[in-house]
């Protein structure tokens, strides 16, 4: 059943960008660099990237393992409007990971994360260092799921 992993391309593609109204570039530069250092093929859409632009990139890169979106300015909620639709319509099929500063204000811990999950976000990370681990876990999971599917079909 390990055949599924052979079917995956060797260069792992990740789509990266910063949310639509957000121009904070530094973390984006650093994350792109470190993922590339780990061998990822990073499609970095950079700052101020609307959902539509992420969706187009997904269509262009059907092999992308994840869409990784940073947001620092607190506008993630409005900026991700349309994400659920893009997923429902099948234009974004891979998991969506977000990270950064996910609400306006200094006192965190409200409903921000719940709202993001409801809006179509799959994973929320606080530290970019957690990204490679999560990407690996997702890949393993996908492999598992594929294996299960194959298994089922074969049985």
């Amino acid at each position: 059943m390990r055949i599924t992993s052979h079917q995956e391309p060797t260069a792992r593609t990740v789509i990266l960008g910063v949310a639509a109204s957000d121009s904070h570039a530094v973390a984006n530069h650093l994350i792109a660099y470190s993922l590339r250092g780990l061998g990822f093929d990073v499609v970095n859409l950079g700052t101020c990237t609307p959902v539509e632009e992420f969706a187009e990139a997904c269509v262009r890169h059907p092999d992308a393992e994840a869409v990784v979106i940073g947001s620092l300015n607190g506008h993630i909620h409005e900026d991700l409007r349309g994400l659920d639709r893009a997923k429902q319509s099948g234009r974004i099929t891979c998991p969506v990971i977000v990270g950064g500063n996910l609400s306006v204000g200094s006192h965190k811990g409200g409903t921000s994360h719940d709202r993001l999950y409801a809006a179509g976000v799959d994973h929320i990370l606080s530290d970019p260092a957690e990204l490679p681990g999560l990407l690996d876990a997702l890949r393993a999971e996908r492999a598992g799921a594929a294996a299960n599917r194959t298994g089922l079909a074969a049985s």
Partner: protein
Amino acid sequence: MSLSAFPGFPGFPAFPAHGSAPPSDPAATPTPAESAAYITSLGKPTAAEVLDRCRARGRVAIQPRCGVGGHEEMKALLATLEAEAAPDILTLTIDSHTRLLRFEEALRTLNLRPADLNGYPMVAHGWRRGRELNELIEAPLEIRHGSPDARILFDVSVASGITSFEGGGISYNLPYSKAVPLAESLGAWQDVDRRCGELAEHGVVIDRELFGTLTAVLVPPSISLAISVLEAVLAARAGVRCISVAYPQGGHLAQDVAALRSIPVLAERYLPAGVTVHAVLHEFMGVFPRQRDNAEDLIFYGALVARLGGASKLITKTHQEAYGIPDTAANVEGLRLADRANSPLLDFITVDDDQVQREMTWILDEVADLVEPLLERADLIEAIIEAFAEGRLDIPFSASRYARSDLIPRRDPSGAIRYLSTGELPFSSAHVRRNTELLHAVDGPDPALDALMRGLTGDINHFRHVFQEEEPATPAPRSAPRPVSAARTPPTEEPI
């Protein structure tokens, strides 16, 4: 979307903004002449007048950042800041939808969840509400934003009687957007500057502050100042009469003081006589310490740097900087703390003048290398666009495609910001050599890319290291963020 959907703009169809709809008939924005007459009738000092007065008294004017979505909330914020900290100038920080002309998004958020906005959506609220804010307080107001194209916002602001407006065709483009060509932003800001000239003819001098802070993180002083010089020359040519040159505290005392003290020299050198120029310091604009004590140490230090550098004005930070937009109390505390550096009891504090002099020479020489070839050109705007395209002008960590970010900054062992790589910047070989030598001790020559990134990250986190804050992010104050890591990742089910 159409502009006419907004209060304060022709054809406004009673779109309800948060709180209550703007009170009166949303006829056309007043003309510059009408706005100038309104401003004169207000009888409150303009920002330019306050800056002159502070400079004459040897006081660094103090100004917060502040902007919230709702109109009533904005009123409360301004009133409280004035009552409890009496800043010399107050601010409307604009939300980032409005900055990017995403007026529809700004209005939607304003109506649904105004607290989700990271600033005051001035265009959605309209100029009548702007006047209400302005009339509420004694201090003059400045609009701080980050709009590559600020023409609509400018008109609403001036109609509101606001006498200070931040930005520039380079400094409000490259750090603030991805895909706006410089030709567009420079053109839009030429319009703004020309409108300032027009207002000056009607007797109202608008303080035009240039955002030398740029991307805020490890910006070499000569880059910040060179870009401000170019924007200042364009502004002066368009008729602007009062220019504030803002410089972001980098964290090295002598270098920061030298940068501030360079501003009048540069003004003398490159600007026409009739223009008033003020130096402005932004308290440290990079990664802030997380612990309150440390953040406060940095806030006070920044204010002291402004004093020692002879700045006319200081833009303050708060002890909540590392966490998010501050609450009102933190903002008050930041202002009050910064103002202590204006104390008459601190006259005895001085800097090492030799060291400052040395840094100043370097800064002025580097700025000359960057700007003089461009200032010679007949079409300065064209020259600037070309220079960025070719890397003869550049900024680190650009948000925009229209700067190459080939230059690599690093801190030298004393913490000063130097050029590890100057990319295509037209520096004399002496400057390049000096920078290389100063950085030699940091990683040795030609560090591996990995070491470079580690080093850069360390430099970005400079003040967290100074205060020995441990790397793992400490939780936010009071309400800790709930653990977030991969919370919804389904458990990996390995088939057996």
